[in-house]
């Protein structure tokens, strides 16, 4: 959900999988970037346009989702809708991988391009900074993904919380 990188495409398709790629932040900017980014996320028409452009898929269409760090830039109401959509479009038993910044003192947090190098390594390349909609702790993430089967957290370097969610 954070755009296609060469290494991630090569890694996933190397297993014989089909990969669907999109830049979620690009959609957010296109739909909500004209004016106050977070205030625009409360407008129903803009929200509908965003969901149609970014998450219009059939139920169980995906075997997994690389969400990366995109969920941090959604207001609580829109975030809930997006998580519900993710729950619907990934098949039962599949996994989601997401990252959340854990340093709450920062006004603007880095956004990254995530590149899977191999089965043990993900390279992060900073591609800008943005003000997040909110910060999350473990309890908040458990509540966010409460409809999923399980949630696991790992604290990584660079103040990132890696979250693996099972549908």
């Amino acid at each position, binding site marked *: 959900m954070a755009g296609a990188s060469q290494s991630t495409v090569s890694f996933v398709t190397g297993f014989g999988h*089909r990969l669907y790629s999109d830049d979620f932040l690009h959609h957010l900017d296109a739909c909500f970037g004209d004016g106050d980014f977070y205030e625009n996320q409360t407008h129903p028409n803009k929200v509908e346009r965003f969901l149609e452009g970014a998450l219009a898929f059939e139920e169980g269409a995906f075997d997994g989702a690389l969400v990366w760090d995109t969920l941090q830039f959604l207001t609580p109401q829109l975030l809930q809708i997006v998580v519900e959509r993710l729950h619907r479009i990934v098949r039962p038993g599949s996994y989601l991988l997401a990252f959340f910044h854990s340093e709450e003192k920062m006004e603007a947090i880095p956004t990254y391009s995530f590149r899977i190098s191999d089965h043990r390594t993900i390279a992060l*390349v*900073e591609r800008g900074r943005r003000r997040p909609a909110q910060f999350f702790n473990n309890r908040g993430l458990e509540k966010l993904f409460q409809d999923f089967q399980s949630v696991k957290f790992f604290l990584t370097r660079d103040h990132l919380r890696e979250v693996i969610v099972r549908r």
Partner: protein
Amino acid sequence: MSTLPGRINEPYEPRGGSAVLGKSVIVKGQIFSREDLTIDGEVEGTVELQEHRLTVGPNGKVMAGIKAREIVVLGTIHGNVETTDKIDIRKDAKLVGDIRTARVVIEDGAYFKGNIDIVRAEAKPQPAPKPQPMASAPAPAASVTQTAAAAGGGDLKR
């Protein structure tokens, strides 16, 4: 955090010896080509170059389904693309549509939205090697050969 080394790509230059649709050209309809084609204008419809390369130049806007041997994108494509060899999406290029190809190259800074299906040509089956004449051997050597055949029979049964 790490950065990847920059890729070395061929710089874009309009290729001599291939057909070119210039910046001010607008085509609506079907394009079939039996030579390499560069599109720097606007095309709406379908584009087919089965054994050749299509280059969408930096000013090119193609709203079409495309089939080619190879595609290099520096401009914009809205449509599904299919190549027998490779598709190369350069920095600042935009492709919205599904890709079906043997290889895909996506530069940092390129925008892509859609499915990627990698379809590799199946390797041609190797012809079976001609059986080598075997010299007659004393019994122990023959039994070793038979054991090897039993254990790794696949190697001797091509």
